[in-house]
């Protein structure tokens, strides 16, 4: 272990240390001054951003460290930077809710920072072992986060459900990894790839291993048919946790898929492509169609997540650089849009009652025109209407699918996008065309409103100036 290696992992080391500092510091902070924990956590993320940006500015070549278990590349740095930025948003949004619902405790911050650390390790994973390590760190912290409200039956139920199914999926993944290890004799993703290229490994063993790995990935992404936990957990968890689950872990899941399937198992592309096609098509169809029938907006957004993950898979299945860049762009953009959408729900939650029915959005344009406009932009962006950034995400994955020759799949994708537009339009309709039941203006702290504004405007600005983010994603896969 050299100093240079430690420098590669500086952001991870920093986040780990700070997570421990937050944990300890929180013990000595009284309830009235709990805001300090929040500030400390946000500062941690700001510095982590600076550290990762410094690495990102460095020359673009891929560097391996810690006996090749750790990869530093553009892809990882970009994903990490967006994870920090989105998590800052999550913290600010969550604070408002946690205060109102008497949940403002230090655990939320510690657990979130550990989940972030897991995401970071996963993003930079160079061997099957680091992949699993990162993933488990992320998911264990997530289980606990879902159950953060001890008094909520719903929350506990969701947490148990998530835990049981999540462990099963982790088991699948681990089993798949062990079969791959057995066939190739290595845990290192590059060595696995090299071994496969040289024709090593029994094909039966590899195929079975691959199936389990793809199942594990599908679960983490929430792709059909392993999507059942998404609506229940999204519905059961408190809003800020749902907000968290729909943002950072999605970036982690995309990193998981790209690290395993591209870095490690690219030789088996012909096999996994077929599986991803099925997952993508089913996710887009089921997610969009079932979302229409929802009256609970958390469940609606949960099914919308499923359909969006179908689009992400669409970007991955051609196994081209353009496709990966499109999937990465999509995941980042989705995390931003989804965070904003859940934030508006937090905004609408009053003391003691979460806004979770579609009717709670009624007449928002009259109660709070500015935030209604933000939600309008987020919804049109999720629906994939230009000039919002969601369009550029959809457009790129469709271009990638089309260039790989899957014309029918791209036609299916656009038809599903039209069907999906319906339920996003319904949200706009409720906000703008209906009269509010409750005419009281919606209040929120300044920092909350500022972050929500940045979030909404980002959806527009990233669309108009989409060239920059697209180049960043494309340059991650050169």
């Amino acid at each position, binding site marked *: 272990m050299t100093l240079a290696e430690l420098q590669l992992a500086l952001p991870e080391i920093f986040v780990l240390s700070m997570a421990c500092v937050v944990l300890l510091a929180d013990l000595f902070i009284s309830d009235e001054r709990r805001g300090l924990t929040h500030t400390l956590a946000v500062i941690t993320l700001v510095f982590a951003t600076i550290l990762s940006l410094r690495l990102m500015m460095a020359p673009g070549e891929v560097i391996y460290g810690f006996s090749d278990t750790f990869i530093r590349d553009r892809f990882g740095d970009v994903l990490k930077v967006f994870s920090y930025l989105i998590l800052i948003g999550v913290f600010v949004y969550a604070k408002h809710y946690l205060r109102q619902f008497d949940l403002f405790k230090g655990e939320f911050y510690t657990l979130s920072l550990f989940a972030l650390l897991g995401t970071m390790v996963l993003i930079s994973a160079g061997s099957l072992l680091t992949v699993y390590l990162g993933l488990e760190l992320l998911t264990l912290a997530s289980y606990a986060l879902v159950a953060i409200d001890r008094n909520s039956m719903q929350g506990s139920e969701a947490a148990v459900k998530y835990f049981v199914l999540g462990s099963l999926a982790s088991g699948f993944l681990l089993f798949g990894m062990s079969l791959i290890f057995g066939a190739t004799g290595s845990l290192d993703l590059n060595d696995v790839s090299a071994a496969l290229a040289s024709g090593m490994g029994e094909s039966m063993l590899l195929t079975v291993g691959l199936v389990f790995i793809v199942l594990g990935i599908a679960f983490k992404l929430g792709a059909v048919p392993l999507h059942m936990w998404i609506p229940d957990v999204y519905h059961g968890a408190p809003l800020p946790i749902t907000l968290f689950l729909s943002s950072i872990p999605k970036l982690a899941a995309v990193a998981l898929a790209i690290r395993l399937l591209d870095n490690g198992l690219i030789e088996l592309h012909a096999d996994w492509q077929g599986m991803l096609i099925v997952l993508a098509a089913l996710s887009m169809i089921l997610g969009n169609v079932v979302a229409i029938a929802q009256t609970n907006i958390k469940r609606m957004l949960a099914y919308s997540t499923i359909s969006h993950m179908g689009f992400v898979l669409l970007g991955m299945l051609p196994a081209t650089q353009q496709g990966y860049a499109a999937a990465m762009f999509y995941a980042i953009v989705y995390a931003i849009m989804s965070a904003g959408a859940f934030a508006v729900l937090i905004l609408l939650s009053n003391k003691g009652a979460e806004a979770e029915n579609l009717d709670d959005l009624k007449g928002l344009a009259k109660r709070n025109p500015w935030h209604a406009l933000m939600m309008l932009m987020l919804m049109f962006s999720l629906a994939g209407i230009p000039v919002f950034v969601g369009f550029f995400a959809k457009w790129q994955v469709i271009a990638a699918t089309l260039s790989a020759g899957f014309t029918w799949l791209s036609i299916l994708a*656009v038809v599903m996008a*039209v069907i999906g537009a319906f339920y996003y339009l319904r949200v706009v309709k409720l906000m703008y065309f209906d009269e509010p039941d409750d005419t009281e203006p919606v209040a929120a702290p300044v920092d909350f409103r500022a972050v929500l504004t940045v979030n909404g405007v980002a959806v527009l600005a990233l669309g108009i100036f989409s060239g920059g983010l697209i180049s960043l994603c494309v340059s991650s896969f050169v």
Partner: protein
Amino acid sequence: MLDWPLLSLLTWIPIAGAVVVAALGQRSPDMVRPLALIVALVTFGLSLLLYVGFDASTAQMQFVEKTVWIEAFNIHYHLGIDGLSLPLILLNTLICVLVIVGGWGIKDRPHQYMAAFLMLHALMTGMFAALDALLFYVFFEAILVPMFLIIGIWGGPNRIYATVKFFLFTFFGSVFMLIALLWLYLDSGSFAVADLQQHQFGLTAQILVFLAFLIAFAVKVPMWPVHTWLPDAHVEAPTGGSVVLAAVMLKIGGYGLLRFALPITPDAAAHLDWLVIALSLIAIVYIGFVALAQSDMKKLIAYSSISHMGFVTLGMFLAFAIARNTGELTGAGLGISGAMVQMISHGFISGAMFLAVGVLYDRVHSREISAYGGVANTMPWFAMFAVLFFMANSGLPGTSGFVGEFMVILAAFHASFWFAFAAAVTLILGAAYSLWLVKRVFYGEVANDNVASLKDLEGREWFMLTVLAVFTLGLGLWPYPLIELMEPSVQNLVEHIMQSKLG
């Protein structure tokens, strides 16, 4: 002076205006209307500079602006106009002024109303000027957002059904165009419209691309049988929304066919021209009969629009039949020029008719023909304008409605007697439904107390109807300036589509 990036200014000034108007609205509501009007007038003034500086002797793109937008995909922010887009941009900026004036009396959230219309017009200008296919698509789709809100917020009782139907219909049509554009990009490596027009590819692919374009633009035109969203949208939209929809938005489909479908896939267009001609003739004749049966004035005008837009699509696709049947190209340009004239003229006339219905609706709050009768007795000046516009709608010589229809029918004779015959039926049908409406609403005895208490036009209404009347008559009596403006571009287009692109 002409070094200004005029097209960008025309696109972005109203957008900036919309943002300012929407932001100001909460604090100083009195500022909203004058400010929106100033923005619209400035935009209109700038568009006149386009007209002044336009060189009508060439088919080259003019006022070109080009910078890289998305480097990774070779997409440019590329604007420019030729004789096909300039008249539509002028129409758009003119209608924008009228709609802002027309919306002066809106009570519910006037700042958002004005902002939505400024945004809508800005996006349409950008779309008509876009020379990069993806940029075009972005504007083309973005237009849906303000229109969705305009119908949904300020519309009639059944507005939500109408606006969602409008949105989903157009969105569904356009996604196929997106796939076609992506396919073309992957095949040719460029999104530039000029490159796509020169790109050579096989017949099967051309047919598929052509059909994708046709679905997208047929919904916008709208052509039979995908026209059903239009009557709903028109009936429910506020007056301003109906005016924009009829006057400018319907032209997007026709413009798209001229800019994309015909020049990019000429062989497929030649192959499938029978399909478009058949759909156009069905629209002209069948929808003409449907219009005759309407009892709601806005619905009647909506169906009349569909029938008139049938002329536009007919005129555009006659060229191939003419070339096949006569072996020469006389009349091919005439058809396309006629289609363009018809689009512009329909912009004035349909806009004016919707304004006229709006004038009545503001006073009586009914669009039913049976609620009126003898309006000419109480509103003589208004009746003068209304009769003029309904006459123009039925194609009275001397009005702009006659010029376009006459040119298209003349071109249709070159192609086939029966095309011309079927198209000419509309002159009778158009006269029938237009004049019958005039008789029932304006003439006869005063029908009821509502009509008896009607007051004649106010200053604002005078202004709007006079402007449109001047253009309707001006274009009808002296269409030459418009035709001259388009001539090189139309000739260029005709020559381009007659050359096979089968690579």
